[in-house]
């Protein structure tokens, strides 16, 4: 079964009204419901929310030496906020999950096919 990455995109410093406790609970509930639905459908492989980008660390090989540096590799205003890894029969099926996910988390979702599952 093909696998897809649904990545949740957050915009750093995005001006938005802070969520009220009630809204936060509502959002949390929706995300939980989606996870349950994904699992019940056998589509869920993994999902998780990430900390802010300033908690990220980059490791790379430079001149034969391993270099460890602070910060996300890509300096961008948009960053990965979390992701789902799911199984879906085809892109349309993955897009249905993605539309539920974007409704639950309130952020844009990118849908990426995994190369290893290509036929």
């Amino acid at each position, binding site marked *: 079964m*093909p696998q897809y990455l649904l990545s949740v995109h957050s915009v750093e410093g995005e001006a938005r009204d802070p969520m009220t406790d009630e809204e936060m609970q509502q959002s949390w509930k929706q995300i939980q419901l989606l996870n349950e639905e994904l699992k019940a459908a056998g589509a869920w492989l993994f999902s998780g929310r990430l900390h802010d980008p300033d908690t990220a660390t980059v490791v790379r090989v430079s001149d034969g030496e391993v270099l460890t540096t602070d910060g996300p590799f890509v300096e961008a205003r948009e960053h990965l906020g979390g992701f789902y890894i799911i199984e879906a*029969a*085809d*892109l*349309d099926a993955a*897009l249905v999950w993605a539309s539920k996910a974007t409704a639950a988390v309130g952020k844009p979702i990118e*849908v990426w*096919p995994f*190369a290893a599952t*290509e036929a």
Partner: protein
Amino acid sequence: VGDGDDPATLDRAEVGRIFGAESGRSVATLIGVFGDIDLAEDAVQEAFAVALGRWPADGLPPNPGGWITTTARNRAIDRLRRESRGRELLSEVAALSPGDREPGMAEGTGTVPDDRLRLIFTCCHPALSTQTQVALTLRLLGGLSTIQVAGAFLVAEATMARRLVRAKHKIKAARIPYRVPADHQLPGRMRPVLAVVYLVYTAGLTDPADPGLCAEPVRLARILATLLPDEPEVGRSLPCTTSCSWSPRPRSWPSTGPSPSARSTAPPPRSLGEDRAEGRGDVGERGPHGQHGGDQLLLRPRRRPGCRGRATPVAPGRAHPGAGVPERGLAGQGRPRTARPPATPRPSCGSTPTARPPTWG
């Protein structure tokens, strides 16, 4: 087409024209059989080479479409037999294919019309950019060569070839399905399809060098009308839209292209009355899905059905449902043409469309 054609008059241009009209169906059928766009395309291309060799000498086969599908299918099978992965695929194909699509498939009418419909929805999948949707539709369904598609976009052939390769790779890698969307998905999915038909149509009207482009949207609209009779936009309005403006096209446009022979074989202009008979739609009718079709968002020529002019293109730089960013030329804007249609401005065919953000993607 051409049962009574005298073989002696069947030159290469004529073979090309007949092939262009029939090949979309064959490509669609073969994608359905083999599940591989490249294989289907290459096989149909090989069949074209065979036709160029045989048809002028032997005359047109009684059923050119069936002949193309059979020849291309045999070529595809030959190729698969030569490859080890192909042999696996071939056994899968044999296992999956319903009997009626096996050897006798291309006899008689020879095709399953739903394959073309599936292909339209794959080419116009919202996961592809609008430019890519149009290019794929012209190439795969319209049977245009890559160089013709490149011409419609005013880009180099190599650029268009790369774009088509990338698009086909995305379809394969992301598994864009080859099927007609379910009823509840149709409203959203029809919109890009209609937008593509509209853009293809505009491209045809603004390219007097290539009358094939002009006939194409009319044919696509007819296919859609046959296959989706319950969609008012497709079933009634769209054929009116396209053929209303298409038919009175001036025949005196200067020849700018390299294919005068293609011009001479273009279908004859149809009378407006004949075209209008196809357009039985009422303004503002809603589909079974309770929405206006994409055409109603794009242009509203039915308000003035007698209008003989070109449909109003969307103003440059304006958002346009489904149109994304039409490349130079494709929507007929900002197109540096030395030879233009006659200077007399043709009346616009409707109000300027309302800019609306696309509801997908």
